């Protein structure tokens, strides 16, 4: 076989998934060379729709600029700004006020000099939002750092951490850092969790089960009640990451734990401020004694600077709004919007098991990812794509994040673009 033929096997950029560049054996930096070669090939083919620069706030319609310079005005279905709080005028005003009083950064670890009274106010606002006695909140400067710190401070060598197979990378990384024994149960499958826990029951170690409220890949709700029951049956603890469900699910927006009626049974709830809050950071909500411990032993917290005061000021305002009729109306609207978009797509494309504001459109073949992403952007849609190995082979998907702020006309336009793409790329049903 000549070198040209060999290249045919190797160089088509649509054949690659990002995991293929993650590591190389040998002392040279071949993974860096190959990744950059792939990136250059996609750019040279005018298909590079990644790493775009957003030129304004994450509103339902946004201006972006590609790394190659082209500008587009797009419908925004890629942002986690579910309730539009990142650009709410009251939130911005609160953030500005905090900025004036406290300055730009906290300039210190929360365990040393970085905690302001504002951070404590935020903690109390979160505790009040849940409305339970004896609980506390520990604020982190990132959602990733929250899971990393909580898991690795609670689980030690010899303990067990049992993760949903679709659990977020931050939970997995926390598990690795903890040096505990890591086990997985099938996605959202309480029966398989029971099977996995039975295997370790007799050793009587500490066990932490980790799951999520709403799963970001499929947009399905966790079977949290059943998962919690199985966990308790085995005398284990449970952590629920409500990143995609807090302020959204449940009658009061307290998440899937509220929706499933297990708020008092769940041992640790992790919140992310970068999604429905529209800010940045994260939080552990748990019994006060556990929170006290995590404050001192979560290394991602004690060795990071405390949350920016302006963000903390804005987040307090978000909680105030989310507790009021504003939050109630937005929760109602996001559900209506998601149902509406689902109704436009259902039967025309495969939207999997979504029941939430995360709506996947499964296009299957991962080789479509680069051209499809480019096509959607050029046709007016800012939207996220997920491919193997983040999702199974031949289950690659577009993910639409619906917000309470989308108008019906925008939902219609998005559906039209998605259905047009489905016909063009052959995944229309």
């Amino acid at each position, binding site marked *: 076989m000549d070198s040209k033929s060999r290249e045919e*096997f*190797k160089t088509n950029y649509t054949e690659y998934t990002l995991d293929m560049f993650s590591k190389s054996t*040998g002392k040279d930096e071949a*993974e860096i060379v190959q990744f950059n070669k792939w990136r250059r090939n996609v750019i040279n083919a005018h298909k590079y729709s990644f790493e775009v620069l957003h030129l304004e706030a994450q509103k339902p319609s946004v201006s972006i600029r590609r790394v190659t310079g082209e500008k587009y005005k797009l419908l925004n279905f890629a942002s986690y700004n579910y309730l539009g709080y990142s650009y709410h005028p009251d939130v911005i005003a609160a953030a500005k006020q905090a900025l004036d009083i406290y300055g730009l950064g906290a300039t210190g670890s929360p365990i040393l000099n970085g905690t302001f009274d504002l951070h404590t106010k935020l903690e109390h606002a979160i505790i009040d939002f849940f409305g339970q006695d004896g609980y506390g909140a520990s604020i982190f400067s990132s959602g990733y750092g929250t899971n990393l710190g909580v898991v690795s401070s609670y689980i030690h060598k010899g303990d067990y951490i049992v993760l949903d197979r679709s659990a977020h990378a931050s939970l997995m990384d926390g598990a*690795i850092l903890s040096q505990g*024994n890591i086990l997985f149960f099938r996605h959202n499958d309480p029966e398989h969790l029971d099977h996995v826990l039975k295997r370790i029951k007799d050793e009587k170690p500490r066990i932490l089960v980790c799951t999520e409220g709403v799963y970001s890949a499929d947009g399905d709700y966790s079977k949290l009640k059943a998962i919690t029951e199985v966990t308790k049956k085995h005398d284990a603890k449970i952590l629920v990451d409500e990143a995609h469900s807090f302020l959204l699910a449940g009658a009061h927006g307290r998440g899937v734990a509220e929706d499933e009626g297990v708020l008092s049974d769940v041992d640790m709830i992790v919140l992310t401020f970068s999604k429905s809050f529209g800010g940045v950071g994260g939080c552990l909500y748990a019994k006060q004694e556990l929170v006290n411990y995590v404050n001192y032993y979560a290394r991602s917290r004690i060795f990071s600077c405390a949350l920016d005061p302006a963000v903390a000021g804005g987040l307090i305002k978000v909680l105030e709004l989310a507790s009021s009729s504003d939050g109630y109306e937005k929760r109602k609207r996001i559900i209506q919007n998601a149902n509406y978009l689902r109704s436009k797509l259902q039967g025309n494309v495969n939207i999997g098991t979504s029941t939430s504001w995360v709506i996947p459109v499964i296009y299957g073949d991962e080789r479509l990812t680069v051209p499809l992403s480019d096509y959607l952007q050029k046709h007016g849609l800012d939207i996220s794509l997920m491919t193997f190995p983040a999702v199974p*082979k031949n*289950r690659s998907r577009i993910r639409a994040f619906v917000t309470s702020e989308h108008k019906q006309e925008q939902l219609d336009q998005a559906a039209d673009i998605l259905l047009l793409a489905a016909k063009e790329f052959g995944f229309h049903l």
Partner: protein
Amino acid sequence: MSLQNKTDDFLVWQFDFALTTFFEIETHLIQPLLPPQLHPIEAVAGVSLINLTAFNFPAGALGSLPEFQELIFSAIVTPDLSRGVPKFAMYVLSIGSSCQEHLDHSFDYYKLPVYERLLHGIIRKDKLAVEYGDSLGKILTMHNCANQVIYKKDEKRYFQAFTSKNNQIYIADVYIQASLYEHQEIGNVGMLYNHPFFKNLGFDEADPVSYLQMIGEPGAIGQQLYYRPEIF
């Protein structure tokens, strides 16, 4: 052995059926079977992958050899990207065959770790299923678990195969061109039995967890271009 398709540095192997299943295995079990320079690729933390591939080679597809069946057991390892970006790289742990001449060739030419007893392989093309065993007992049963199989014609794949012989590591480029289907559906894909073919790797669970399957369309002739191994 006469090899009609031999060229300077690679051999063309024509096959009319192939079934590959990747199974999950705990990293601490597979790492000791690898040379220190190679590391398993983890699907998730602590979970590595092994690969079982069954081929059916029709009579005359490779030199004068009769129809025979092959079974390859390998660990999925970090590739050498300086040679190109493969779908995956494998470290071959065991190769078995129903044909002695094929085994001899695999050992001499490809430096492959041959399993010396002749296997008997039963290929059920209509069911996309295989069974392998030898005089010591069953090795595996393996079958497709996807509800719907949609072959894609003229698929091209590049792989890397690591082997070791006499403390020396070798690497070979492998290209496959065939009508293929890949999937990652969850389901029963068969059984792996505790057997010397698996290098004493015990399979505790009767129902091993599969990760991914690739199927070569039965009856459609696919080609495997296997380069001569080079010192790594």
